[in-house]
Each structure stands twice: as structure tokens, then as C-alpha cells.
């Protein structure tokens, strides 16, 4: 579904991704793990069109999307819940969700998707008329994922959904990611919390200093001694 080949991305003179390749098949939950600064967020930003690669290709459903603008990429079915959540803090939860569907006209289907988001995160229904900036960190994360789902994506990109959350909330977020996937969704999950990510993923890639150093099924990565030492805390 998504095929990245030899992708090179830089911020000015600093090269952040030094030619990475990865693949996400329809219906898969793939995770990209690695330490802070490895290039994980850069990779997702490039897929979403916020950054333009120097070279390499991103092919989504057979089309090269590397040069498209962010809104064109959303239109094709890729949406992202970004690192740091980036919710619309001064708008209500309901407005945030409706904005997630800003490109759509099918009001009935939008309502259905909103109901679906409420089944994943019932708290958002309770908080519907509350200003999003007043939500707790965990609720904001749920809102960010819910908003991304409101565009009815075929491929969902999640950037560090566990960042800064208490363990109990991390569990809840990951359970909902699993649910999205179980219902046929395709997910590319970027995480520093490698242990959690590898528990729910099918396959994983390990990114280090802009290069992919390992790729394997999640199970293999979980038991890999190097990965264990470097990312799973021994």
C-alpha cells in the first residue's frame, strides 16, 4: 500500500534520513522504532507532505506522492496524528473532530465516523462541548487520533501516541490502535516506547541516525538481543 524507497530528507545541511526504504501492506500494523532524533518524525512528516525529500520515492497505491501538498495527501486517504498532538486548543472537542472531516461532504458518513470515534474513545463524547485545551494530556491524545480518523483514512500515521502519558493511558491508547487495525485499518506507528509498539505490531523497522538498521516481524524484534539492549531496556 505504501512503499518508500531510498528516501533522503534534510533540514538545510543536516541530513535526517539517509536513504530509508520501508513497506506497509494493506491491513498491516507496522511500527517504526528508534531513539530520539533517529528520524522517525521526519519520516512521517515526509509521508504527509510537510517535508519534501531530496531524493527517493514514496508510492501510495501505485501513485508517487512525494511531491504532493499535504492536503492532496489527506485527500488520497493518508492522515496523521502528529507528535505533540497539535489539537486546536481553543476550539471544542466537537469542532476539532469536525475539522478532521473538513475535506468531506458526505454528512451521513461523517456522523457515522464520529460515532466510531466515540466507540474508541467514549470520553470524547462526554467532553464534546468542552474546549480542547482544557482536556488532560491523555484525552488530547485521544482527540488527536480521533481527529485523524475523521478523514476516514485508509492509512493512519501515528506519531508517538504514548508520549508523556501515564502507563494506564498508554495501555488504553494502544488498545484502541489495535482495535482500529482489527477492523481493517492500516497503521504506521512511530514510537519511542518500543516494547509497547512491538507488542501490538505485525512488523517493525528500527531506525538509527537516519538509517534503517533492522527490519523484521515484531516478534523477532522483541527477542532480538540488540534491540532488547538498545530499546527495550535490557
Amino acid at each position, binding site marked *: 500500500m505504501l512503499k518508500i524507497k531510498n528516501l533522503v530528507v534534510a533540514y538545510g545541511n543536516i541530513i535526517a534520513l539517509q536513504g530509508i526504504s520501508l513497506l506497509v501492506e494493506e491491513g498491516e500494523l507496522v511500527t517504526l522504532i528508534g531513539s530520539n532524533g533517529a528520524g522517525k518524525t521526519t519520516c512521517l512528516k515526509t509521508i*504527509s*507532505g*510537510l517535508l519534501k525529500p531530496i531524493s527517493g520515492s514514496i508510492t501510495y497505491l501505485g501513485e508517487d506522492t512525494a511531491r504532493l*501538498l*499535504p*492536503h492532496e495527501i*489527506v*485527500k488520497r486517504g493518508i*492522515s*496523521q496524528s*502528529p507528535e*505533540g498532538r*497539535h*489539537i*486546536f*486548543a*481553543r*476550539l471544542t472537542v466537537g469542532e476539532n473532530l469536525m*475539522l*478532521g472531516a*473538513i*475535506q468531506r461532504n458526505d454528512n451521513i458518513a461523517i456522523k457515522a465516523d464520529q460515532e466510531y470515534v466515540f466507540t474508541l474513545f467514549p470520553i470524547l463524547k462526554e467532553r464534546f462541548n468542552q474546549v480542547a*485545551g482544557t*482536556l*488532560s*494530556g491523555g484525552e*488530547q491524545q485521544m482527540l488527536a487520533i480521533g*481527529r*485523524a480518523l*475523521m*478523514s476516514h483514512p485508509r492509512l493512519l500515521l501515528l506519531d508517538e501516541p504514548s508520549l*508523556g*502519558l501515564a502507563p494506564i493511558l498508554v495501555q488504553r491508547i494502544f488498545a484502541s490502535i489495535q482495535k482500529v487495525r482489527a477492523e481493517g485499518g492500516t497503521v504506521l506507528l512511530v514510537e519511542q516506547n518500543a516494547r509497547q509498539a512491538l507488542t501490538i505490531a505485525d512488523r517493525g523497522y528500527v531506525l538509527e541516525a537516519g538509517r534503517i538498521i533492522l527490519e523484521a516481524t515484531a516478534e523477532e524484534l522483541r527477542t532480538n538481543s540488540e534491540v532488547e539492549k538498545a530499546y527495550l531496556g535490557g
Partner: protein
Amino acid sequence: MTFIEYLIQQTINALSLGSIYALVAIGLAMVFGILRLINFAHGDLMMVACYVAFFLISSGIGFGPVFILSILAVTLLGILMERVAYRPVRGAPDVIMLLTSLAVSIFIQNIFIMFLSPVPRSFRNITPSFLDIVNKWGAVGISNINIVTIVITAILFILLTLFVTKTRLGTSMRATSENLIAAQLIGVHIDRVILTAFAIGSAMAGIAGFLWAARLGKIDPLMGFIPLLKAFVAAVIGGFGSLGGAVIGAYVLGFAEIFLIGFLPPSLSSYRDAFVFVLLILVLLIRPNGILGSTEREKV
């Protein structure tokens, strides 16, 4: 003149002055909200609109068409500014955007000074003469220009409010000004939003230019500077980037200025701008983010 009559008179004057500041401040706030760019050239759009009218009026097509063409011209100029000067520095550090807009402003002003001379020109024969009529109610005298200013501004606010709350483009604009990255990720075409912000802001600045020039009766290449400065203060007082804040700030400023002139002894009233800036400092001491400004903190 009784005290009540005096209050009514000054309130109308303050509303009228505040309205002009508000029209300018909205454009500033709209662009700042999205791009974090303080557009110093915004005041020059007021000037350009007036000059376009000044030269078009001799063609004899009448005030209506001249007005529409002038506003159209500055709208295009605003869009051109964005494309030529501001788009290349989009996302650059704030200082670079600030200097770019300062450069655009100085460039436009000097083009006009070079080719059209810095000498002020009369705007009296351009606006319809009925604007100068003063209506008397007892001791209260209200000129038509004040009424027109207040009414036009009110209508424009209502239209703008409808636009940003009811249309998809307007909603996209609010989202973009809330959070640029998130707006892109939900699928907002930000180039279009930014273009719209410049177009609306420029058109409003052009209209404000007409109202300003009609009050003063003359135009010159640097006429946009003072209203720009006042609109900037208004936007800061209100909470920079928020449209509602900019409007509130503009009226606070309008009232402060008019009532300061009214109550201060004549020897001090020529220092009214100094008092305006003292007001700015006071507001910022008490509410550093302005009246409607909010501090956004990241939550964990």
C-alpha cells in the same frame, strides 16, 4: 452643550475612529494569526487605494466604480505582496519576516514618493460631498462620514464573522490560525487560506484608507503609517492574532484617544499619542497576552 450631549458626541467620534483602526487591525491580525508575520506594508495598502482613486476619478466614471476598482487594485496588490515577498520567507525566523515586510513597506512608500512626489494631495473632490454634511441634533453634531464609517465597519464585521464561522474556507482559516501544522494534516490547503487572508485584509485596509482620507481631506505617500501603528497597538492590546481581540482593542484605543483629547487640558492634548502608548504599556503589564490573548501551555 450638556454633559450628556458631550458624551454622545464623543462616543460617536470614538466609535468612528475605533472603526477605522479595527478595519486595519483585522487584516494585521488575520495575517499574523496564520503566518506570525507583522505586515508593516499593511498601512501602505490604505495609501495605494487612495492614490488609485485619486487618479481614476479624473476619468469621469463616478465615485462608485472608482471605489470598487481601487479596492480591487489593493486586493491584488496584497495578493502580489504575499506571492512575491512573503511566500519565499514563509516559515523563516520571525525577524526575517519582519524585516521583509518593513522592506516591502519602504519600497512601496518610496516608489510613490519618487514618481508622485511626497506633496500631499487633496482628497476632497473624490469622496461624495454628502459625507461632509454635519447633522445637528441640539448641540450634538454628527457628520455623515462618521455614520458611514461606523455602519460600513459593522456590516463588514458581520460579513467577516459569517465567513469565518459558516464557510469551509473561513473554518479552514480559523483552524490554520490555531495551528498551522494541524491544519495541513487535516487537509487544509494553506496556500489558499493565506491568499484569502491577504485578500480580505487588503480589501479592508483599502476601505479604511478611504474612510481615513475622507476624514483628513488629503492623502500622501506616508499616510498609512500612523493608522498602521495604531492598528498594531489595537491588535496587541486585544491579543495579537485574534480577530475579536483586534476589534475590541481598536475600540478601546478609539475611546481612549478621543476621551483623552476631550478631558486633557489643551496644552497636553497634542501628546495624545504618548498617552496611547502608555495605555499599551499598562495593558501589557497587566495582561501580557492582551485582553483576549491566551497563554497556551502544553499539557501532559
